[in-house]
């Protein structure tokens, strides 16, 4: 049995490695491009959020001479002020011309009203449909409110009233997320992607070794050999497993190399995706290759042509990702029962690793055992299916 298995395995891999198109889509597209795309988009998002935190907000002020103290306060808070004279109509024209412009209009009598303790009038002009103008206007508005509350508490104190009277409730934001768990939010999509790329690594071999072989007419001579059909099919499943494991390893290597270049620490996240982490994730995910390979082989045995197999297997590929999607929506936390669900358990293991809180050993054992059990069951089923007469089409 072992020799048959190895002979089939060697031949399937040799064929795959000689087919450049298959190789590109199995090992290049998924494992290389997917992580690079992810890391690239993460980098962009990070850079933008970092920028906006300490960016200086430009503000044009009409009637600047009426509120020197206020403008001094705004300047201290990172708002760069450009005085410019104009009527409200002029301001409307400026904003219409430059969508990103935010204009603060200090109305006449601002100083007098302030001294008299009456509401002093300001107007903030901005085009609310532009995201940059909106963000800048928000920053200005927030700082204006801070200044206003300073003035208010100063007034109360002058009249001998404690300013804390104005604060019946004080809300403390206590953020319980650790830097790593915050990172997981961003990396949550990762296990989904890793699983998908891993499975598609074996997709073409699985199709070629089953539906492809039938379409080319090489299945019948193969099945008329004095070799148990199960052994031939197991060899093909094993070859698919190896391709998937290879795609997984390649992708994790790319991730380990590229995630390091992300400025995750600068926003308080500390996922260390180094070789050790890559190895641990590989260990957590790799038992699932057997489920994936056997599942594809089982489904392929019902298809009549390469094209049909491609369509079906492409859809079947998504099945193992469903538990992960459901878990993501319902925010499940690991339990022994959930660890018995293949693909979900891999997701939970990987999330644990990324969070820096690895799951206990018995959880890992449940995951590995249940996944391998399902994989072996599917492999056995695949072998049985190839004993049917109809397999020749």
């Amino acid at each position, binding site marked *: 049995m072992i020799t048959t298995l190895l*002979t*089939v395995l060697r031949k399937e891999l*040799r064929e795959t490695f000689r*087919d450049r198109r298959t190789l590109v889509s199995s090992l290049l597209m998924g494992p290389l491009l997917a992580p690079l795309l992810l890391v690239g988009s993460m980098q962009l998002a990070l850079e933008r959020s970092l920028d906006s935190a300490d960016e200086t907000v430009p503000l044009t002020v009409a009637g600047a001479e009426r509120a020197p103290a206020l403008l001094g306060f705004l300047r201290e808070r990172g708002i760069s002020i450009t005085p410019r004279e104009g009527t409200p109509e002029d301001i409307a024209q400026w904003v219409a011309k430059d969508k990103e412009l935010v204009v603060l209009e200090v109305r006449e009598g601002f100083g007098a009203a302030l001294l008299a303790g009456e509401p002093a009038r300001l107007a903030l002009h901005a085009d609310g449909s532009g995201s940059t103008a909106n963000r800048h206007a928000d920053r200005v508005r927030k700082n204006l409110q801070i200044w206003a509350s300073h003035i208010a508490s100063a007034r109360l104190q002058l009249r001998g009233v404690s300013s804390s009277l104005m604060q019946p409730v004080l809300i403390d934001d206590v953020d319980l997320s650790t830097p790593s768990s915050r990172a997981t939010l961003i990396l949550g999509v990762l296990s989904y992607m890793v699983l998908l790329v891993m499975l598609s690594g074996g997709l073409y071999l699985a199709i070629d070794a089953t539906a492809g072989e039938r379409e080319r007419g090489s299945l019948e*001579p193969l099945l*008329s*050999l*004095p070799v*148990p059909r199960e052994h031939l099919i197991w060899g093909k499943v094993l070859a698919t497993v190896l391709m998937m494991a290879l795609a997984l390893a390649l992708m994790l290597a790319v991730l380990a190399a590229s995630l390091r270049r992300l400025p995750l620490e600068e926003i308080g996240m500390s996922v260390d995706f180094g070789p050790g982490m890559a190895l641990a994730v590989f260990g957590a995910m790799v038992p699932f290759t057997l489920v994936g390979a056997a599942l594809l082989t089982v489904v392929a045995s019902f298809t009549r042509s390469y094209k049909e197999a491609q369509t079906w297997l492409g859809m079947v590929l998504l099945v193992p990702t469903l538990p992960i999607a459901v878990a993501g929506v319902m925010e499940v936390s690991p339990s022994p029962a959930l660890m018995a669900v293949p693909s979900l358990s891999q997701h939970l293991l990987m999330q644990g690793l990324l969070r820096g809180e690895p799951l206990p050993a018995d959880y890992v054992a449940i995951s590995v055992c249940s996944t391998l059990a399902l994989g072996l069951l599917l492999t056995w089923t695949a072998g049985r299916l190839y004993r049917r007469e109809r397999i*020749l089409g």
Partner: protein
Amino acid sequence: MIAVEQLAKRFGGVEAVRGLSFECPDGQITGLLGPNGAGKSTTLRMLYGVLSPDSGRALIDGIDVAQDPLVARRSLGVLPHGAGIYPQLTARENVRYFGELHGMRGAALEARVQVLVEQLGMTEFADRRATGFSQGQRTKVALARALVHSPRHVLLDEPTNGLDVMATRALRELIRSLRAAGHCVLFSSHVMQEVAALCDRIVIIDHGVVAAEGSAAELQERFGGATLEESFVRVLGEREGLA
């Protein structure tokens, strides 16, 4: 020796083979002749065990294929109808793969593959990848693959399909040399000249039963055709009349 006894197989409502019996003695070439859809391929498929008969037996050296397919297949070389080869492997690798699955290894396997390469005139393309091979080249590879383990019995389903004159002649030579070595050769064809030129015994099947059998000369004598083709047409015509 290959024998089928009262073999029957139906697919849904279609009775492909209905109580078929014939024998192919060792050291002879037996031709399975019949029109399209007569049940030739189905019979051969039951003989090499990818289909199991509904009733009756297919015997290889007295071993029931349905009972013990692995043992029965060990002495069989099979060229199924429209057999394909692996396009990413070279001709030699295609043959070697099947040799390995037969349990052959190392120098013995290499030597055997080389013999087949020379015998079948594959030297030119033996080490080229099979992508883009002509039908004739593919058939030669498939044939070499079927013979790699030097089987005692050879089943060939329409082996001359797509072969040119030279390749057909080479194949005939090969089949004759198999006979000379005492092998039992059973092949199906609907090409009359092919069968007439090659076969010691001819089994004409029609609608899943044996319509007539004997040597080409015997058939001609019995049915009075000037050629085998004429006899063949008369056999079928007689059956049409009976039906």
